[in-house]
């Protein structure tokens, strides 16, 4: 174990920033959604790193729970995408601007 924890954290930050960028750049709802998953994973990576650093396995439990939440979120989110697609016949996020009216 020679790689400093710091590197893992910076990698995690990089992944998180890429996810955030994906959310704001992409038009495709599915890709936006995957970007969110990526951000969750980035957070998980830093949690694992901290867990090792503190020699505590509680972090692993936390990651486990975050994964459960991600799974639930994926299920509900994909259901929403299916419903929206049925109504509007597209998953282009820019088309959904009812809030403007």
């Amino acid at each position, binding site marked *: 174990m020679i790689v400093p924890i710091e590197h893992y954290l910076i990698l995690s930050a990089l992944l998180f920033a890429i996810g*955030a960028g994906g959310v*704001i750049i992409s*038009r495709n709802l599915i890709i936006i959604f995957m970007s969110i998953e990526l951000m969750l994973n980035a957070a998980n990576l830093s949690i694992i790193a901290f867990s090792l650093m503190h020699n505590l396995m509680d972090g692993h439990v936390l990651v486990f729970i975050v994964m459960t939440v991600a799974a639930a979120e994926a299920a509900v989110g994909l259901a929403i995408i299916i419903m929206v697609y049925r109504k509007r016949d597209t998953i282009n*996020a820019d088309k*959904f601007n009812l*809030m403007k009216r």
Partner: protein
Amino acid sequence: MEYSLYLIPLFPLVGFLINGLFIGKLNKKFVSFIACGAVGLSFFYSAHLFFELLSLPAEARAIEEILFVWIPSGQFNVNIGFLLDPLSIIMVMVVTGVSFLIHIYSIGYMHDDPGFSRYFTYLNLFVFSMLILVLANNYLLMFVGWEGVGLCSYLLIGFWFEKKSASDAGKKAFIVNRIGDFGFLLGLFIIFWQVGSLDFATVFEKAPAMFAVGGTLITAATLLLFLGATGKSAQIPLFVWLPDAMEGPTPVSALIHAATMVTAGVYMIARSNVLYMMAPTTLAVVAIVGMATAFFAGTIALAQNDIKRVLAYSTVSQLGYMFVACGVAAFGAGIFHLMTHSFFKALLFLGSGSVIHAMAGQQDMRYMGGLKKHLPATYWTFMVGTLAIAGIPLFSGFFSKDEILWKAFSSQYGSTWLWVFGVAAAAMTAFYMFRLVYLTFYGEGRMDSHAKEHLHESPKVMTIPLMLLAVLSIVGGYVGIPHVLGGINYFENFLEPVLHAGQNLPVATHVLTSGSYSTGTELLLMASSVILVLLSIILAWYLYRKNTDLSGKLRTSMSGLHKLLLGKYFVDELYGAVIIRPIVNGSLFLWKIVDVFLIDGLINGLAVVIGDISTGLRTVQTGRLRTYATIFLAGVVVLLLFVLLR
């Protein structure tokens, strides 16, 4: 013992509710049966209570029954409670009795009116309110009745509201009364502030300890209460509404604007006699205002041509007498005159109503005349009323009016001048009443031929109340024959327990000892006033019967004075120029400049500015998910930057 005082006002209330809730659904017979029955029941019940009261010893004749607590609020506690004592039983008897007769009369008078059931609904509501007024055991409940009768007066003056003059008269009455009510309320505030209660019993018991005799506070309180009385009872300066109130149906004029409601002010002052006795300044004001009104209104009545207006000014004048009586601390005499006046004035108004009925709505005496043979029943009863109001001996008005004149002369607070003006007003009363009688019932008929054919005596349902009232106008005075004529003045003895407290104040003890004058003086004064009255009757006979040309000549030779009197001293015009015009102009300024320009401009301007800003800000809301996410991220970046640079 339980007396169930609440039953007295309850009957008219029930009648009002039945007629009011099912208005337009009941036939006329049923409506009139309910209305008259309700008032009749409360009359007979109050007669029963009257005899119950008589069977009690004089000191125990004050029955107070509290129904429930109305406003419990800290120190401020007001009950719905009724007080029956000699003063209120007299008022209740007069109100219910006269109302009952007028209700019956109205069945005939209003028979063809489309607003028949509405009329009886209002009338019952009026009787209810008036009974609340006179039966209340505290000032606030009295005020409720006070406002209630004001409302009914407004509704009934404007009964034929499709006529503009009628609805205007209603508004005028309401607004003028509001000025008086304002004073009344302020008076109540002072009383409550000082005494901490509005119950009659408590106030009169504590007032001598709480107020200094003749002090500023008691004077202010009583003057403000008197302001309320001038509004309700049509005294100077607030009398202007009463003559216009004649726009209402004639039975209403008889009931509300002659017999009952307008006497509320006199009743209120008599009820508050303890307070008034403690404020000699106010008493002087009351006496002077009363006498000025009596004299002033009498002169106006001399020149009026409208039969009801003559009676209206005569009412104002007679009310002035009652206030003179109150002002010289002869409250009993005031109430006595109130009672007899309500008999003969109701009679006169109903008689004039019968005349108007026969003349198909014509009220101008210049187009009447010679009605004696067409309307015999009306003529005879009207004559009785005229003799009573003129103060001819043996009729009721003589006893009560003479009592007042004597008290005005002899009382501690009276003076010779009050007596002089009183007698002059009495002579004028006789003159204009006989002028009215001669113009209406004697001479050649001056109506057109069409109206002549229409002439007919009123139906029995109208003449019988007239006859009953005529009887009352004769015998009503015999309950108060003064000592000097060999009577025992039973009426004032009966009232004595109520007026007892006021008369037992230290300030008042010497008032009663008016025996410094000999009975000879009293008889002399009485005789001189009767002679003056007879002289003025002869003058009226001479001018309007014997030598009718002379009256016309007199009119032209004194055209200035005549115009002044006919124009009622132009008091309405004066009020219009001095009070109403500035208010109207001020209101116009407030409306056009302050409200429309300043306030509306400010508000609208604010709305426009906010609208513009919002339209600008609205473009930020693109409704796009990604834009929001971007702004979110930018916000996070800025926050982190803030954390870093801190």
